[in-house]
């Protein structure tokens, strides 16, 4: 962690020169990246400081735009904090029930095979209440892309244990840390899905740092491309920070994510073109 975090310690008498950031530079320059992602209607949202979900959203929308699918995409959104992001997403959406998005996406894809179908689900949504739906959708080889935002907690209820909560992780209903004897083991959903014959592409990414975000984007591009090629079910799991649900300072979110969740839910591609990676 950076030593610059003591914000009150810096300011006027600092010898380093502070560059103004309230307006674009007046000299010759090239804009490299804009505030809000592609395909958004507004930049503001009500998710907590330090949340990893908007980072994932940015990559999803940018990927759709970059692949030329902006006018062919349909998103099916589950129930979680990320549901609030639907008001800023400028793609067609269907709001599904908790856990049911893969089924809803299935029906939509069957009637609109020309569309790029993706789901946006949290770990409580997909791996708890909707586990059978995502597994069956994958096993059928439905040509849709399911996207899991995995932070290991029910963020919206205030930090409760989900099926992906790692052993030792403190949640409001595993206050001494998740104990396998009391609470069972976490489900590694990506690994489970990769083993199914119907899946074409399975990858797990993490947005705990810039390189991780860039990798997330690559995996999303590959998943969507797999769908566009008609290869079957594609899946991208994205580990995201939830400092509020983890009861830690926002700045510690990326480190906690990488160290705790990332150690169990290992980042990387698990299946490409229907073939297990390293298998």
């Amino acid at each position, binding site marked *: 962690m950076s030593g610059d975090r003591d914000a009150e310690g810096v300011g006027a008498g600092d010898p380093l020169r502070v560059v103004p950031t309230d307006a674009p530079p007046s000299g010759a320059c*090239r804009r490299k990246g804009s505030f809000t992602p592609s395909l958004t209607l507004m930049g503001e949202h009500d998710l907590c400081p330090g949340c990893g979900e908007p980072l994932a959203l940015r990559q999803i929308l940018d990927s759709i735009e970059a692949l030329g699918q902006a006018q062919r995409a349909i998103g099916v959104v589950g129930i979680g904090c990320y549901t609030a992001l639907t008001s800023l997403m400028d793609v067609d959406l269907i709001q599904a029930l908790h856990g049911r998005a893969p089924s809803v996406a299935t029906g939509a894809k069957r009637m609109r095979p020309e569309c790029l179908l993706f789901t946006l689900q949290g770990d409580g949504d997909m791996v708890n209440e909707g586990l059978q739906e995502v597994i069956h959708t994958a096993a059928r080889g439905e040509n849709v892309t399911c996207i899991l935002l995995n932070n290991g907690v029910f963020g919206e209820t205030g930090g409760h244990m989900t099926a992906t909560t790692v052993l030792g992780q403190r949640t409001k209903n595993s206050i001494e840390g998740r104990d396998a004897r009391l609470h069972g083991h976490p489900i590694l959903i990506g690994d489970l899905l990769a083993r199914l014959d119907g899946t074409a592409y399975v990858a797990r990414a993490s947005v705990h740092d810039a390189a991780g975000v860039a990798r997330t984007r690559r995996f999303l591009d590959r998943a969507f491309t797999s769908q566009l090629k008609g290869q079957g079910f594609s899946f991208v799991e994205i580990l995201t920070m939830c400092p509020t649900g983890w009861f830690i300072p926002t700045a510690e979110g990326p480190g906690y994510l990488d160290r705790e969740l990332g150690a169990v839910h290992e980042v990387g591609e698990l299946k490409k073109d229907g073939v297990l990676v390293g298998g």
Partner: protein
Amino acid sequence: MSRAPSRGTVVIDAARCKGCELCIPACPPRVLRMSARRNASGYLLPELLEGCTGCGACLLVCPDFCFEVYQLDAPDAAKTTGGIA
């Protein structure tokens, strides 16, 4: 601590910032730091020092879409545009 001249710069939408500090460690040249300034919501804001490379890492890790990133055609152009805040 010596800084390289700026090859890029950022605009920060201070009104949107929630002071989460994720941008601070994400910045490869370490030219972002938290300031003592607060926005209307009371969140402490980051500030930019000389030496930005315009790499866009801050943009990638900002949950509140606060960053706009520019690559400068002439290195150090930032200095001439703003001077000392």
